[in-house]
């Protein structure tokens, strides 16, 4: 009978029953260590699974993410064996995607602001930042908006604001970015597709 890797991992969780052997004087250290591993596997077993796609090279390999239902944190990411392109395999970057999650202490978790001439970051709220950013955009746009060019043609553009990025965000976000940039009249628009 062919056993899948997933079935094997699930099945081996039943070995936790071996802990009762301690009363018989048998050295259980290796078994306890093994049991810790079993607890991890238990967590993965009881985790919520969802599918995702790798965030690197454009082969578009499939991922399975396991999220701990108690903490809401991702506890494991591996290749999706069902995915027809990668069939569960991943390169080094894809295999390490766990380190892009909240598990990485370097993740930005606060809105940061650097004031003019300052040498450090300050933490801010979203409301403060969005309001200030919008005011900056509006002030710059209003000061230099070009409704008509020198030939008298309607151009409705602004050349003092530029936008870059990104090929690294979801398509629905890309679409909103294009809509935002165009509605403001921004014409200096570019991103990784060209470079």
């Amino acid at each position, binding site marked *: 009978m062919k056993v899948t890797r997933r079935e094997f991992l699930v099945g081996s969780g039943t070995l936790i029953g071996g802990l009762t052997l301690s009363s018989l004087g048998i050295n259980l250290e290796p078994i306890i260590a093994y049991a810790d591993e079993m607890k991890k596997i238990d967590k993965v077993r009881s985790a919520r699974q969802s599918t995702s796609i790798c965030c690197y090279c454009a082969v578009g390999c499939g991922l399975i993410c396991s999220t701990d239902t108690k903490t809401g944190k991702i506890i494991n990411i591996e290749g999706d064996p069902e995915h027809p392109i990668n069939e569960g395999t991943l390169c080094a970057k894809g295999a390490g995607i766990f380190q892009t999650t909240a598990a990485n202490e370097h993740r930005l978790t606060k809105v940061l602001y650097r004031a003019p001439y300052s040498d450090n970051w300050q933490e801010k709220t979203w409301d403060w930042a969005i309001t200030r950013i919008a005011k900056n955009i509006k002030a710059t746009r209003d000061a230099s908006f070009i409704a008509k060019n020198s030939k008298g043609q309607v151009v409705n553009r602004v050349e003092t604001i530029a936008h870059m990025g990104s090929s690294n965000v979801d398509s629905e*976000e890309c679409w909103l970015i294009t809509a935002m940039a165009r509605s403001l009249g921004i014409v200096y628009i570019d991103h990784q597709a060209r470079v």
Partner: protein
Amino acid sequence: MTNHWIDLQHSDVVLIQGSNAAENHPISFKWLMKAKERGAKIIHVDPRFTRTSARADFHTSLRSGTDIAFLGGMIKYILENEKYFKDYVVNYTNASFIVDERFDFKDGLFSGYDPTTRKYDKSTWAYKKDANGIPEKDFTLQNPRCVFQLLKKHYSRYDLEKVSSITGTPVGDLKTVYEMYSSTGVKDKAGTVMYALGQTQHTTAVQNIRTLCMIQLLLGNIGICGGGVNAMRGEPNVQGSTDFAILSSYIPGYLPAPQASLKTLDEYLKRITPKSADPRSANWQQNYPKYMVSLLKAWYGDKATKENDFGYSWVPKLDDGQDCTILNMIDNMYEKKIKGLIVIAQNPTVSLPNADKVREAMTHLDWFVHVNIFDNETASFWKGPGLDPKKIKTEVFLLPAAASVEKQGSQANSGRWVQWKYEAAKAPGDAIYTGDIVIRMVTKLKELYKKEGGATPEPILNLKWDYADEKGRFDPLKVARTVNGYFLEDITIGDKTYKKGECVPSFTLLQADGKTSSGCWINSGSFAQDGTNLMARRKKDDPTGLGLYPQWSWAWPVNRRIIYNRASVDLSGKPYNPKRPLLAWVDGKWVGDVPDGPWPPMEDTKNGKYPFIMKPDGVSSLFGPGLGDGPFPEHYEPLEGPMAKNLLSSQMNSPIIKIFTKECDKYARCDPRFPFVMTTYSSTEHWCTGAITRWQSWLTEAQPQVYVEISEELAQIQGIKNGEKVKVESARGSLTCVAMVTTRFRPFKCGDQIIHQVGMTYNYGWLFPRDCGDTANLLTPTVGEGNTGTPEYKAFMVNVKKV
């Protein structure tokens, strides 16, 4: 890609040129190894011997920047040895078209060049047309003015010795590659070309790729299983971001960005809609008006009406000829003309050429907004090496974003599969979706413009902006459905009636009268009429057995997995290769992949149509008048190169490349101070600038710091030992790093000259980890390819010395 990743397994001969697929698209090699198991041969042409070369059946090297010479020689070989697939060339390309008698080529330039404007007048790059306006043809391909004969004439100059002197590739190796690859010019063999930035990051980039396309057309390799021109894109969703046009020259769906001289929607539509007098040409671009109007309805909703040209005047216009691509953007920032910059999930102070110029330009900004999941050299540009924050006035906002696995949405891979993914966890702390950030910014701007008024507020106030859920959060499904498109009222098309609010199940149903909306026509059909998200499908059925998986996810256009597939059959609709029946005309209908147009085979002289439906003439272009630098690819040297002369003509560089002339842009050609050719690339463990991967210990342990790869021969000449610290310097900047002395590079013998080449990854920046190095782009030149403005990262000149 014209094909897709799994399809690689069906190739008989694979040409990987301009790519290190094993290291940068590793899982592609799963399918190449499968091809090898079936007897396929892999050819790798690359200046360096890489892991891709190690798995290839044949590797040879060429000097960076000489691909057109190499491939032009292959075209000569194919034509002279009659390796081309004659039926395919006669019926599916413009080989038979007669060219205007004024068209000419002399000493590196085509007819119509104006050296003062550095532009071509392309009016002579045209076909002779008959009284009905249809190009005249000679199907015997003998007329000296037919494309086929002009092609032969053009590449007759690319003989083996000349090519070898330019590329540094030994004549024997050229012959081997040409013979191996041209063996696919027969019905039952498929050849695929795989390329990446090794082709695109040159000042001859577009023509590089065109040469590959032309070879594929001559050999009958486009539209078939195991064939195609397969661009391996480098970012998870660069296909999506390109489709949705985060670019100055396009709007979503590859519609051209409107120019100022096209004052009304009608004028714009007339300009972008090509005409064809040939009833056998589907000329699919004639449908562009439907897609443009549907896009305007998606952007402006009810505010776009027939009376106001559907809001056409609100779309910003470039002046005719105005270039707003990236190098001009940086140049304007440097000149203090740009006051504010938004950079989302990109690291330009590491990734753009001439990094010192970029870093200086950033300090001229009044305000700067950055969105990312980690800090990087761009967000923190104000404390970069050599800068004093006390002198930099830019106010900087660093906004924390959700990572890819923390977001629901779609990503389009290189094979055009638009794959849906799910939110595995909420982003940590205050981090939110980039989509949420954009929604909040526009919502606030609308508020401010409504309250205060300001410069031309209409484009902002009239932008349809209902993409949040009931809790005010970005709803990716709402955007995805908008992109797919809706019927805006009940409408009957043909014999079917569609209700208001239903999803448009195919772009063939989009209308030019305002009754439909669609944010991007090529994505129309990603939802079924009943609203089912086809991008999220996970069915493994494979009815053809060819690995198309038509019910796994959804591919654009209309779930067609291999495009131009009607070129895989003969005029009667029979597959050229019955062993790989991608498509076949059986009992009055097409069976297999989604046909590239429903029309019957061309043998049906009344209803049949040519297979290349996106071209006005319906056939593919060996002669390509659409580009700015010539209808035939021609070898030109990189801007910075080691040669005193171009061995093929007096025209040193491509005549339309974008050059910059500030002091900081200086370049040095054939200069003894910078005698070695350099190229740049990536590594498996790091990705692009390392902005995401350098924060990950598992990856950085494997690739901790920047290094330059140099040949043993060069190491001996410069007195450099493996592992020693060296300084790499170009006309623009310098960088200290470790030297890796290796046999992976060998000197090139170009005629009488010995030319050394070195290489470096650009995966490092000064911010983190400490002392990992800095970007290779401190060395690269500010020069752009003439059609697109893509910089030349792959061929420039440096010196390498011990420190």
